[in-house]
């Protein structure tokens, strides 16, 4: 019975449809894959410092500042010589005279408009191996921005970042050799860097996909300029004390202060 009805259906269908050959669809150009990675010096948005918002603040330290550890470089005379006057100190925790913290990394963790590609600065950020220490101890760069790795020491270093989402590399840099230009393609806060030859050497690189980040200095302050109006998660990262978040809403041309306090 079912087949008979199918048969009838077919006859009806045949009588209705004059002939096959549907309309041809015009090919559409495919928009292509995801957003391309920003290229250094390429096109992209630039923070609007005239009309954007500004967030400033300090990273305060609460508690007794830990004693700065002395680094034992005695195994390597070339390193010891660089610190003939005073022994080198670990830069893991540096509390400034005004009770603020040096080398804290502050950045906009989320809240920026989706889909904006930010212009990558064409100037590199210097990471110097000087006196068998990394100078500076913490740097921030944009994804795709060059890091200029320099060896100012009379000894061989190797520079070995251990990222988790970027590719890891480990390259030797003999004394007197050319500076190396290196980039990281993806956002990653933070990438630890070490030297396998001098195991006390440690530095951190914050790689951010936008230009809204800062590293605190001798006064423990930071400034982030040119933010589009919006609500943001602002994060501070510290090597020893981990991370803290704050939510902050800013309007156009508005200046706000947002301090952090790290408990020692």
């Amino acid at each position, binding site marked *: 019975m079912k*087949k*008979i009805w*199918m*048969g*009838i259906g*077919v*006859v009806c269908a*045949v009588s209705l449809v004059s002939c096959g050959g549907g309309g041809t*669809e015009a*090919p*559409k*150009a*495919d928009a*292509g894959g995801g957003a391309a990675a920003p290229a250094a010096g390429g096109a992209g948005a630039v923070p609007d410092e005239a009309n954007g918002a500004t967030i400033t603040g300090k990273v305060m330290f609460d508690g007794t500042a830990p004693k700065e550890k002395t680094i034992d470089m005695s*195994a*390597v*005379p*070339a390193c010891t010589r660089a610190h003939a006057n005073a022994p080198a100190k670990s830069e893991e925790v540096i509390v400034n005279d005004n009770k603020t913290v040096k080398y804290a990394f502050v950045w906009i963790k989320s809240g920026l408009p989706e889909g904006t590609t930010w212009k990558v600065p064409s100037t590199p950020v210097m990471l110097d191996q000087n006196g068998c220490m990394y100078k500076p101890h913490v740097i921030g760069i944009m994804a795709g921005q060059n890091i200029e790795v320099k060896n100012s020491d*009379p*000894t*061989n270093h*190797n*520079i*070995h970042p*251990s990222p988790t989402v970027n*590719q*890891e*590399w*480990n*390259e*030797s*840099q*003999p*004394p*007197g*050799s050319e500076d190396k230009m290196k980039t990281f393609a993806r956002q990653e806060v933070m990438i*630890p*860097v*070490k030297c*396998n*030859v*001098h*195991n006390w050497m*440690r530095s951190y690189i914050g790689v951010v996909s936008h230009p809204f980040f800062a590293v605190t200095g001798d006064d423990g302050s930071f400034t982030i300029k040119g933010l589009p109006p919006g609500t943001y998660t602002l994060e501070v990262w510290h090597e020893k004390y981990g991370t803290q978040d704050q939510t902050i809403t800013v309007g156009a041309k508005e200046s706000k202060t947002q301090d952090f306090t790290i408990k020692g």
Partner: protein
Amino acid sequence: MSDQDKDPVVHSSLSKQLFIWSALLVLSMAWGLYDEVYGTRPWKGYEARFEKLYSKYLANARLGETAFEKQIRSSAEYQKMDREMQAAEKAAMPEASAIDKKVNEDLVPKILALNDPFQIVRAHIGSLTYEIEVSKSESSKDSLRKEIEELKNEVQKVSIPGEPKPREMKFSEMDDQLKKWKDEKAQLLQKRVEIMKQATELRAKRDQYLSDRLPEASAETIGLVQNSLANFDIKIRQIHVKDVDLVDRCESCHLGTREPVTLTAAHMGGEAVFASHPDKELLKIHDPELFGCTPCHGGNGVALSSVEKAHGYNKYWLWPLHHKENIEAGCQQCHVKEIVTEDANTLNAGREIFRLRGCMGCHRYEGFDRETDEITSVSQQIRSLEQQKAEWIRDAGFDEQKANDPRTKDADARKLNLEANDLKVRSSGLDAKMEQLDMRSHELIREVKKVGPSLKEARMKLHKEWIPVWLKDPHAWREGTKMPTFRLDDGEIRAIGAFIWQSGLTGELPQQKPGDAEKGKEAFETRGCMACHSMEEGSKKFGGTFAANLSREGEKANYDYIVRWVHNPRQRTAPYCTFEKRDLSKADYDKHNLPYVFDLEHSKCPNDGHELQVQQMTPMPSLRLTEDEARDIATYLMTRKRDNATYANADYLDDPSLKNKGLGLVRNYGCAGCHEISGLEEEQRIGTELTKEGSKPIERLDFALLGHKAEDEGWETHKGFFEHKLQDPAIYDTGKEKAKQDRLKMPNFNFSKTEIDAVDTFLEGSVDASVPQRYFYAPTDQRQDIIDGWWVVRKYNCMGCHRVHVAQTTTFDTIPRYQDPDWKDQKPPTLIGEGARVRPDWLMHFLNNPALSENDTNRDGVRQYLKVRMPTFSFSDGEIRKLVRFFEALSSQAQPFIAEELEPLTDQERVMARQLFSSEGAPCLKCHMTGDPKHDVRATAPNFTVAKERLKPGWTKRWMLDPAMMSPGTAMPSGLFRHEDNRWVFAGPTPPSFNGYPKDHADLLVRYMFQFTPEELGRLRSAGAGN
């Protein structure tokens, strides 16, 4: 009414009936036509849709691709290559076209003109020669020969193009001339290739540049596909493998499977049926033209009439299509000898569960019980060799007897004596063979392991009160444990507990002083224990899954015993004699005035000389810890307990009346499949053999009362049976009236969905193969070593510490502590490429003695700077051989190993290398050990002074040049050398002695390291190396 009116022909019309019937006829014809064209041929619809969707996709893809391709083509680099290629082509063109002209306009017409008359005569001569061969009379042969001579001498007129008058030529002249022209032509063409070589190479380079940068198909490929699609036919597409009578028509619907353009469901309007095969590499190894589709995937390859039938989902088809989560089941039938099959992770997980969780304790599966099977086979071989030898010796005796008989002739006697000697020599060869087998049979006892701990030791190791709690529900006490939950009532638990307790050995344990728990924790977390064991519970759990979680060890075990266990897990309380089938006591040794000592060096039974089991049958190795460190770790483990844990008194375990009932239950539940138990050492398996379970006829799988339910719910299949059984092993007892001892015995393993998928994949693949033997993966080359090696690698969980192959992580990769960059360098070394790195003789030595020292065993032989330590596994020689061959095979190393000869160092070179090694600019000895304890305190890399015993020079050079290539993330930096004038030179400042040195610096350092002497070490140290 006239008569006419009465005539039915006049007054009753049939036209209505006729109309209806003819309408029905038309309809049924239409239906018939429909059925013929589409109804029973659904694949036609698929093909039509495929063509439409594919064309649409290609048109789009081409637009996208061309834009990207254009970008590459217009890049400076591509343009440069293109120009170079064009220039080369242009430069070569005049000469090439001259050759073309000569060949095409001169030689070819000449050859053609001469060829015809020449062939006619040659054919004629040929036929006459044949006649000579078949003719019988000599006279006719002679006349034929004469005829051939005449033919050869006959002059032919041949007009050659380009020559004014025809040439007059004999046969031999034509032959010579033709050969000359043909040679000339060949030479010219060869010359043309030479001339064009540069242009051809440049063109290939340019095209390679393009294809290297296009991740997807190029516009050119798409264009080709589009052209072929223009001729798309709607037809059955089938693979026919003639010699095995395999017909697979899967591609009649799955049209995208082998398309050169990679298709996904998203590309094809969401129709997954048209997607390309997801693994093109796999298809390269298993070419569908040879393998078809169904041997791997299952299904009914011939059927086309419906999706259900084609996929083999009708009831009695024994090889239904594997579901996506079990897709790797198809690998098992041919890769049945493997424990690890590359790229088949689900299947590998299934096999591993089957082995590690103890399924094989109850279920036989061919190939899984390797050691026991080999013991049987070795003793059989020895017996048959003994017989053979006896036969040969007897025959030799007969021969000699006969030879000595005075009636035997001298010649025969000599022959018989020779024969006798041959037999003697051959039987001495059997002695060598038997000796090998005998050694093997002894070491095999060492290789047999049990899944669970020995219950002979229960009394010494465990708290009595803990045993019933554990037996009741092991998973409730320790989440994820290997021990499954049996369906036991309290009476059974008491009886089993009592049997185990009372049959346990009561040896003496030295009383241990307490250790330092904090140090123990550090050691536990860094020495390597965590490669196999995990700590903490729930979401906080971390560490390996190979062995037990030890978060509650303090609740169950005795401290003194754990100290012994940590110090040497293989130490037994009493040796077991495989011949007498019992544990020996001190009395057995006293009888023979022997000390009660049993270890790998003292492994013979004092009573009968048979091989003893002198070790615990655990894969757990010794970390060669000091007793202090063992005490620290044990002390730490004793602190691992829940605060509020209480255990009820269990003194009933000493009740002798329970023991016999317990024994019966232990037998009934097959406990001896996984545990060593006194008196049950030789117990047989209690479960069904599962080697071919996947193709057991469905009616022989006992769904019991659930048959109808399974049918209604659509799981009356092998997959359905396995999954339900694994989920709830008691399920097929549902509704059954059974006596307790008749109930299904399989315990509950608390498998997760992923684990069930894995085991189901393994079982579904365990079939009576539908393909002939030659499809089976049974390599006869080095790949067999890889198969054998994996069994050993898995058995001892080498992969808990080491990366053995790419796309694998180790336990250390997951432990939080080891995420820190400094701890990353504390991970055990990767073993990818190990066979190319180390010498096999060294590796053998190292596996046997990882401390590389007989006296100083509290260390790692190679990397003393690591906290983690390569343990001593007490491998048998057979296992060591398998491991070494495994690594050699993985790196395609020739066997047997022959060390490479290096060019000797000159004195000058030795001085140069030493200066470089000890210079400020070279970092080598800042990290690498030198064997000088003062220096090595700070070392973070292997001892380079033993490189020559350990490493292969070729590997060493490749490693120095680019270590990140072999081991991404290694502490050894790249960029130590730069390539300059076809050689590698050190990238840093070199000592002045290097000025004018023309050779390769990396080679120099390798040669230095491989010709290193103790005297040179002294010189290097006094040069202040490494400071």
